[in-house]
């Protein structure tokens, strides 16, 4: 039974996302050609919220896409015989666009590597940025976020869990310790 300690509550998450939305627009010099791609799962919900925040501040509809990277994982053998594959849908072509990958937690970097491979099969964006709510360190690949909501130190045997109200009924980021 893991013991849990809170890292961010719902208000902290809202503030962080608001900051991330502003940073994205800054780094991309506006919303021209911008495409937010959320990684299944929870990255999708976060991308949706960021998109609405940008819409509210810039008055522009930013297109959103969903990416499921299950079929591109490098550890297919390990995830077990019944992996659930979620929806992938990308609006229009990627060519010439600025794609911002949105995910909840960045850890080893393998998910993002898979996401980059998958995006490459769809087209050739001008630029890809990585935006994550939590960077918990522990990288196994040379992949770094362009925008990180919070950076958290995580010890061995510990895990960062993100909960979103759309899926989990509440907004929270917690540190879970297997006891």
């Amino acid at each position, binding site marked *: 039974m893991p013991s849990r300690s809170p890292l961010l509550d719902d208000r902290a998450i809202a503030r962080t996302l608001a900051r991330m939305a502003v940073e994205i627009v800054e780094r991309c010099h506006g919303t021209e050609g911008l495409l937010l791609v959320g*990684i299944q*799962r929870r990255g999708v919900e976060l991308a949706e919220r960021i998109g609405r925040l940008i819409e509210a501040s810039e008055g522009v509809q930013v297109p959103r896409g969903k990416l*499921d990277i*299950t*079929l*591109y*994982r490098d*550890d*297919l*053998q*390990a*995830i*077990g*015989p*019944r*992996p*659930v*594959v*979620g*929806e*992938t*849908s990308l609006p229009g072509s990627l060519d010439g666009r600025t794609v911002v990958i949105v*995910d909840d*937690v*960045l*850890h*080893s970097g*393998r*998910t993002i590597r898979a996401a980059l*491979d*998958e995006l490459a*099969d*769809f*087209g050739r964006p001008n630029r890809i940025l990585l935006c994550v709510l939590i960077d*918990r360190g522990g990288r196994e690949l040379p992949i770094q976020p362009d925008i990180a909501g919070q950076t958290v130190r995580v010890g061995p045997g510990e*895990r*960062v869990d993100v909960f979103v109200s759309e899926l989990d009924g509440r907004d929270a980021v917690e540190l879970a310790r*297997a006891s």
Partner: protein
Amino acid sequence: MPVDAGVPSLGKDLIGLETLSAAQIQFILDTAEPFKEVSERAIKKVPALRGKTIVNLFFEASTRTRISFEFAEKRLSADTVNVATQGSSVSKGETLVDTARNLEAMRIDMVVIRHGASGAAQFLGDRIESNVINAGDGKHEHPTQALLDMLTLRDKFGRIAGLKVAVCGDILHSRVARSNIWGLIKLGAEVGVCGPPSLLPRGIEELGVTVLPRIEDAIAWADALNVLRLQLERMQAGFIPSLREYNRVFGVTRDRLSRAPKDLVILHPGPMNRGVEIDSDVADGEHSVILPQVTNGVAVRMAVLYLLAGGTGAAAAAARGEAA
């Protein structure tokens, strides 16, 4: 990484739908959905089965099923090898056992087998460690065909439970019929069979299906018809007098369909004998989902290959704590 812990593993092989649970069948259909999307992409490839070797072992000639499996395999980035029996060592008398062992000795990962003897897929699966997928064994089962039929029905109606599906034609010799009966009943559909009595197998009602004596009865009763191909050999073996009579009495014609109380959906596993079991204007008409069946076929086969190829228990358990 969400793993559906409620569904028991499919095991090593896919032999038929008779031994699968409703939950397992549902899971395969659900898994097929994202694979439909892959086939719509410009680059119709995902690396999921990269490095896996799959042999298509076809003892019976079949273009469409083999090609469908081949596409499924290649779109998953697997390496495929086709073995047709003409000119191979099999036609020189090599037994199925030896063929199996030789393949295994070459360290292949999966075998897709189509064979003329009922039980051949299980025979192979019991003797080699590779995954075995039944692409049709004798008159026993053709599970991927039934799965794609059900997926197509689900696309059209949004559900399987409560649907009335009539399987029409030579039920006696049909593995497609048997697999459909198992799958549809398990998912809660009502199944009817319609055909000349000489082509209905003994005890068929005990499987839970309704016997519909005439094609008109089937059309009046069903939401969907799955029209089976009638083979020329049946006439030659004396089961029916002629193909022409079959069309006159049992054919799915536009005229008969026009008297249906509802808008029937028409399925056919292919290849069609136009003008025998089904008329061209029906096959090409607005009720027909024959082409979507073909599209769904690739997605369903990708799902099956993907689910069977994925992982071993121990490694899976270890990875379950791993984060992204």
